[in-house]
């Protein structure tokens, strides 16, 4: 791995600024089926959204391709906290990368309870998902209300000493205000952004393509939205030195660099893996090359260097 890719994030020392995004890489092992893919090439892997109890998830179809992106409505299918801790976590190859658990609750207390369970494990960090658009109770309901977001982060903060990253929703009026409340409540980092809610219609059946009617839009089509949100959140978070995982439609090193310049300390890759499972290596190489061309020692010196017109 190129030396200048070493990045520190929420107290963790990462091999690369790339973080594989929750919901796109299962529980960390799935993409290793691919020859040439290795978790050692990314800074961290964020595991599938985990709830207290097991969830079957939503009915099919769960995905639909859209212009330059896709909708998904998985509905947080996962085996539940107990199985994740007892059966999945022991098999994680901890020497290869850092692992972040992504948690969702249906009440403030439930978020707290899940955070507490993971506090007793060797997980590297906890990402609080208050922005899932695909579940009826919880999810985005917490993320669109700064006071609810505050309470969720606050209870998790009480229950864990692990680094906490709060994942913010783009589907709200003032994302920066919400970010400020999450920081007040003790969040160590922020993930910006989760998917944008959307719909696709089948004109033959006149029904939504997605079984759950609506879904979350990801991929290149949301990149401009995500960039602006990162920029807006950064205006708040930089005052407190709270780092951001910039994400939403990153498919190349240039995309990643745009996010870093806008204020992201690390960058997330999700949907792009579906296009090219070996994309991370290309992104690493491109970032590293840019840093040496610009005589920068690491990603850190580029973060938030955006010059507004």
């Amino acid at each position, binding site marked *: 791995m190129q030396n200048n890719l070493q990045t520190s994030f929420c107290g963790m020392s990462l091999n690369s600024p790339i973080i594989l995004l929750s*919901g*796109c*890489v*299962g*529980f960390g*092992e*799935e*993409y*290793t*089926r*691919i*020859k*040439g893919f290795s978790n050692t090439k990314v800074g961290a892997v964020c595991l*599938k959204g985990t709830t207290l109890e097991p969830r*079957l*998830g939503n*009915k*099919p*179809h*769960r*995905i*639909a*391709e859209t212009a*330059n992106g*896709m909708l*998904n409505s*998985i509905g947080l*299918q996962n085996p539940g906290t107990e199985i994740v801790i007892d059966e999945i976590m022991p*098999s994680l*190859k901890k020497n290869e990368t850092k692992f972040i658990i992504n948690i969702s609750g249906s009440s403030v207390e439930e978020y707290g309870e899940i955070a507490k369970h993971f506090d007793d494990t060797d997980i590297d960090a906890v990402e609080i998902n208050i922005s899932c658009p695909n579940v009826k109770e919880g999810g985005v309901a917490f993320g669109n209300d700064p006071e609810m977001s505050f309470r969720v982060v606050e209870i998790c903060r009480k229950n864990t000493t692990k680094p906490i990253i709060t994942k913010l929703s783009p589907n709200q009026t003032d994302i920066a205000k919400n970010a400020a409340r999450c920081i007040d409540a003790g969040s160590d980092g922020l993930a910006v952004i989760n998917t944008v809610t959307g719909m696709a219609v089948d004109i033959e059946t006149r029904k939504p393509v997605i079984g759950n009617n609506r879904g979350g839009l990801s*991929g*290149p089509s949301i990149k401009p939205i995500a960039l602006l949100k990162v920029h807006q959140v950064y205006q708040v978070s930089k005052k407190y030195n709270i780092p951001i995982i910039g994400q939403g439609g990153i498919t190349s090193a240039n995309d990643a660099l745009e996010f870093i310049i806008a204020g992201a300390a690390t960058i997330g890759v999700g*949907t792009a*893996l*579906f*296009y*090219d*499972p*070996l994309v991370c290596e290309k992104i690493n190489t491109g970032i590293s090359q840019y840093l040496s061309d610009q005589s920068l020692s690491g990603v850190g010196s580029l973060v938030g260097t955006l010059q507004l017109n």
Partner: protein
Amino acid sequence: MTSSNRETISVNDCQVLAHYKYDGEQYILTLSSSEIAQKTIPGQFVHITVSDVTAMRRPISVMSVDEENGAFDLLYKIVGEGTRQLAECKVGDMLSVIGPIGNGFRVTDKKNPLLIGGGVGMPPIIAIAQQIKNNNDYNPFVILGSEVPFPFTPQPSEISNTCPSKTHTMPILEEWNVACGLASLQGFKGVYKGYVTDLAKEYLDTLSKEGLSQVGVYSCGPHPMLEAVAKLARDYNLPCQVSLEEYMACAVGGCAGCVVEVQTDDGPAMKRVCVDGPVFDAQSVFS
């Protein structure tokens, strides 16, 4: 998932070696890849980037492999934008192909495999026939159904089989010495007029009790056809495996986008078609 699955799927740049169009907007595409030709088992599929403008890949089953020349064949039909773009590729073009993917058919030791394929569900069925064609332990019978003209020219068959309704066959199956019946509601020449399950029933009814106990059913095709095949298998008390389809994103088990509901001993579960399937026990899907 255990680490024993690591590095089982490769990302290949495959050259288009041949691309033929058949009636009903069906195409047979031959691609180069020694690795896929060598490693694929019947029922596995590949995930293809169809063009520069469509980023999401499309899953297509492998129909047959040519290990000697490092090539494999796909049969697909245009149903929308992605397959329309795939149809534009020309001999010499390069396509990004991930594969081979999935749990294919588990060909059991039942001596009378009954292989039923409908429409563009024919490929995995042909793949099984190719795998067992030289194995004298097996006495397979293939039934292919299509409501558009078959993607080959049906020819009369010299191979004997017990099925009372004699039909034409698919040339490659004749070459492999595998018995076959063709079915369609369209009244094509040399083709049984009816459903694949009607022809299957005729065949099964010629078998002795002993013969029936040696039948294993393997099927791929449109959902209603699979449902009918599963019912037939249930009526005759035959083991039956079916290959399913669902919209896919990653095709490696990472996104849980491609699930189907199956019944397990622990109640209903959502299984991923890409890596838990695409082949499932018929009675766990249709009950």
